[in-house]
């Protein structure tokens, strides 16, 4: 924070002149990028539809009220499916994540090459969104809960394995050494030295991911992968807006309940 000498005495400024100029230059570039990006979008927009949007919003909003509560009787099965997709998907993910995590952790990996492969599995699973996984799997397995469950499973592997291997790397080594000193083999060290230390982390990760998966499985139906999203896209396509608002209410309450459950369970574990 420089003082600048002027004829009327020193004046305090927040930044030196050069720094201010650099900052202005940076903002100029940022502004140019933003303007260019905006042009890219606005060229592909039909502005008539955008101007029409408030009227449309009022129209659709009006049609959504009141929610069709009687529709609930047909929603129980999709909700149950959604729950199954999320839960079974999490179970699949955890089963795959455990060996991957042990292969990816510095202190348990059998070989650096194995570690690289494990890290690659983690990264590729994480960088593809579950909806894109579902899109692919629907083409392979056909529409239905199976595609959704596997999509959720594949998507969650990376997340679970990443957190788990970080947990494995942070364990207390003295305990493992103590087990080793009793003459235990590597497998025994794993089971008695490492696993008990990471088990709470493991359970926490499972519940945390389950909560995220409930949210994700509500929308998988949009590409045909089962669950309540299937009803949602059906209702939107047939313009049954009172059903749409009912489904949104159900999704909202499912998410709130799952969040509450996961907070309770994690509170009990940690």
């Amino acid at each position, binding site marked *: 924070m420089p003082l600048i000498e002027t004829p009327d005495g020193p004046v305090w400024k927040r930044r030196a002149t050069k720094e201010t100029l650099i900052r202005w230059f940076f903002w100029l570039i940022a502004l140019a990028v933003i303007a260019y990006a905006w042009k890219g979008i606005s060229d*592909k927009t039909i502005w008539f539809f955008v101007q029409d949007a408030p009227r449309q919003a009022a129209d659709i909003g009006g049609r959504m009220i009141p929610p069709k509560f009687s529709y609930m009787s047909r929603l129980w099965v999709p909700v149950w499916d959604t729950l199954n997709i999320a*839960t079974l998907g999490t179970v699949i993910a955890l089963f795959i994540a455990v060996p991957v995590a042990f292969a990816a952790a510095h202190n348990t990996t059998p070989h650096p090459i194995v570690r690289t492969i494990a890290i690659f599995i983690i990264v590729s699973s994480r*960088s593809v969104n579950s909806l*894109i996984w579902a899109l692919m799997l629907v083409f392979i*397995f056909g529409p239905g809960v*199976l595609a959704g469950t596997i999509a959720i499973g594949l998507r969650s592997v990376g997340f679970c394995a990443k957190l788990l291997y970080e947990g494995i790397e942070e364990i207390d080594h003295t305990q493992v050494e103590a087990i080793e000193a009793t003459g235990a083999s590597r497998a025994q060290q794993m089971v008695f030295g490492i696993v008990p230390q990471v088990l709470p982390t493991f359970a926490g990760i499972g519940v945390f991911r389950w909560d995220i998966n409930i949210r*994700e499985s509500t*929308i998988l139906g*949009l590409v045909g992968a089962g669950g309540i999203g299937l009803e949602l896209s059906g209702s939107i396509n047939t313009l049954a807006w009172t059903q749409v608002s009912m489904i949104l209410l159900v999704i909202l309450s499912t998410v709130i309940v799952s969040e509450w459950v996961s907070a309770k369970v994690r509170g009990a574990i940690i």
Partner: protein
Amino acid sequence: MSVAESDFPSSWKKPPFIKSPLLRWSIIIGSAIYLALAFGTMDVDWERAAEGLPRGKRFIAAFFPPNFSDNLGVMWDGIFESIWMAIISTVAGIALSVPIGLGAAKNLAPNWVYLACRSIIGGSRTFPEIILAIFAVKLFGFGPFAGFVALSIGTIGFYAKLLAEDIENINPSQAEAIKATGAGWWQWINYAIQPQVMPRMIGLSVYRLDINFRESAVVGIVGGGGIGATLNTAFERYEFDTAAAILLIIIGIVMVLEYTSGYLRKWVQ
């Protein structure tokens, strides 16, 4: 002094993870029942799934090699659209988040502003971006504008919430020191609050740009423009080799972004 041999255990068992046997067994039995029910009611068409395996093979075969050349023009279009969408929605979302975030910080705002801003945040966090995108497409028509609106709303829920929490956790003594110099409200915000939250906020905006790019790959599936739309079209035409190329490009960009954002966040802090 003779001691019975049985007083010294000759074997040892690992203590169970859950101590109370009642809870342990009810969890085990409960999950067994749940799994049986879940598998029993899951309506899976195994014949169709088995049919899928050769398709799956074809799909995987399409990755070797992926077809980058046939639809290059469309792919570039989609990628740029996604990037523009990610940039604009991050900028717009953050621009809207700053006032909302200031209002949602308990130590800055009066109670009614606090409640109003918190409910805006809560509202925009309620639904995933993809559902917002469906409605945006209904309102604004197909194309990147709908995706932009959906992602901006998603950004508000994320950024304003974290900004508000960060402001609530600032060091109050610095804020007090600035106040003691007789600073006005704007000066107070600008010289006491902003420098304290800025490094983390810059990191978070890069992170959000990363998220918005990922999401922009998805909103296209429901008509929100961007690379997702290109991907969806490729699937619908059964052009698996093009789809594979698009997927690889998405993975590549996401990985680059993740590394850059991680690096930038470390550098800023």
